[in-house]
C-alpha cells in the first residue's frame, strides 16, 4: 500500500511538473479556477453564464510591457465583453518579490483606471503554472464548448508592443473575430514578450 501511495504521489508530482513546465497548447481544454478579485469576491469562468468564451490575460501592475498594453486590454473588454468574450485579468506575480504587484496595489490600479473586468490575484500561482503563462502580458483566448473551454489562441495582444505602429497586426482581436464568425483563428500562437513572471522561491 505504501508503495502504491509513493507511486501515486510520484505520478502526481510528475504530472504537476509536466504541466508546470509546458502549460497549455492550442486545442487543450483549459481548467476553470476560483481566484480572488480586487473587490474581494471570488471569480470563476463558470460565473459568466452567457459568455461564448474568454480573453484570459496574465498581466500585472509593475511591468512596463503590461503598462504599455493596459489601455489595449481595457479596450478589448469594452469591445468584446458584450459580444460574449469578456477579459479576465490575472496577476501571477509573487508580491514578496514585487511589492508593486501586491493585492492592495492591484486594487488601487483597478480603481484608478476603472477596470471593467475582474483583476484576479493568483496567490498560489497554480493557475498561472497550469496555463503555462511565462511573461506579462500573456493572453489565452478560450472558446466555451459543450466539452469545456478550449484554448484557441496563446500569445501577444498585437505585434506592436510599444504602441507606435500605425498598422498593427491585432492577434487577439483577429482570433476572437474569427471565433465569433464561426471560424478558426488564422494565427493561433505568437510570442508574448514581457516581464518574466516572478515565481515564489521554492521552499
Amino acid at each position: 500500500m505504501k508503495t502504491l501511495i509513493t507511486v501515486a504521489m510520484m505520478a502526481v508530482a510528475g504530472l504537476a511538473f509536466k504541466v508546470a513546465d509546458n502549460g497549455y497548447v492550442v486545442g487543450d481544454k483549459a481548467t476553470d479556477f476560483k481566484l480572488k478579485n480586487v473587490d474581494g469576491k471570488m471569480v470563476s469562468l463558470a460565473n459568466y453564464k452567457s459568455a461564448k468564451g474568454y480573453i484570459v490575460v496574465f498581466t500585472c501592475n509593475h511591468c512596463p510591457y503590461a503598462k504599455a498594453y493596459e489601455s489595449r486590454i481595457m479596450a478589448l473588454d469594452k469591445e468584446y465583453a458584450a459580444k460574449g468574450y469578456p477579459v479576465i485579468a490575472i496577476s501571477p506575480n509573487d508580491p514578496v518579490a514585487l511589492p508593486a504587484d501586491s493585492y492592495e496595489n492591484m486594487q488601487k490600479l483597478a480603481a484608478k483606471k476603472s477596470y471593467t473586468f475582474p483583476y484576479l490575484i493568483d496567490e498560489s500561482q497554480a493557475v498561472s503554472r497550469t496555463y503555462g503563462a511565462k511573461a506579462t502580458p500573456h493572453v489565452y483566448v478560450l472558446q466555451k464548448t459543450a466539452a469545456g473551454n478550449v484554448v484557441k489562441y496563446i500569445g501577444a495582444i498585437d505585434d506592436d508592443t510599444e504602441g507606435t505602429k500605425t498598422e498593427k497586426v491585432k492577434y487577439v482581436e483577429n482570433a476572437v473575430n474569427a471565433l465569433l464568425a464561426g471560424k478558426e483563428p488564422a494565427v493561433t500562437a505568437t510570442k508574448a514578450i514581457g516581464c518574466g513572471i516572478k515565481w515564489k522561491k521554492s521552499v
Partner: protein
Amino acid sequence: MKKFLLLLLISLSCFFANAQVKLLSLAQLNKRVANTDTLYVVNFWATWCAPCVAELPNFEKLQMVYKDKPLKVLLISMDFQSKFKLVQQFSVKHKLKAEVYLAERSSDQELIDGIDKDWGGALPGTLIVNAKKGIRKFYEQEFTYAELNKLYLSSQ
C-alpha cells in the same frame, strides 16, 4: 579657454567610447555569431527588468575573467527603441564593459522567433553560440556566475 574646451571634448569622447551603445538587428547578430573563431554569450535584458539588471555583473565578470580567450559577451537590451538614450545612460552609469546594444526590430515576434523558436519572450534570456562546434542554445532563465561559468566551459 580653447585648450580647456578641447580637453573637455577629449575627456568626454573617452568617457562615451567606453559605453557606446549601438543598434543591432537580428541579421547583424546572426552574422556576428556565425563567426567560427569566437564563442558568443548573448544576454537579452532591459533596463526595467530587475532580475536582468541583477545578473548583468555576472556577464561582465565572465567577459573579464576570460578576456584573453575567444569569448565575446554581448548585452542586447530589449528596451523599446525609443529608449536609446536611457540605455546609453544606463550603460554609462553602470560602467558596462561588455559590448552593449539595443535590439533594432520592426516586430518583437520576428526577433524572438529569429533568436530561438522556444523563447517565449520573457526576460532575461541568454543565447550561447559556438559556431565552430555547431552549438546554439537559448536559456530563458537567470544565471548565477557559477552557472554561467559552467555553461561557458561546457560550450567551449
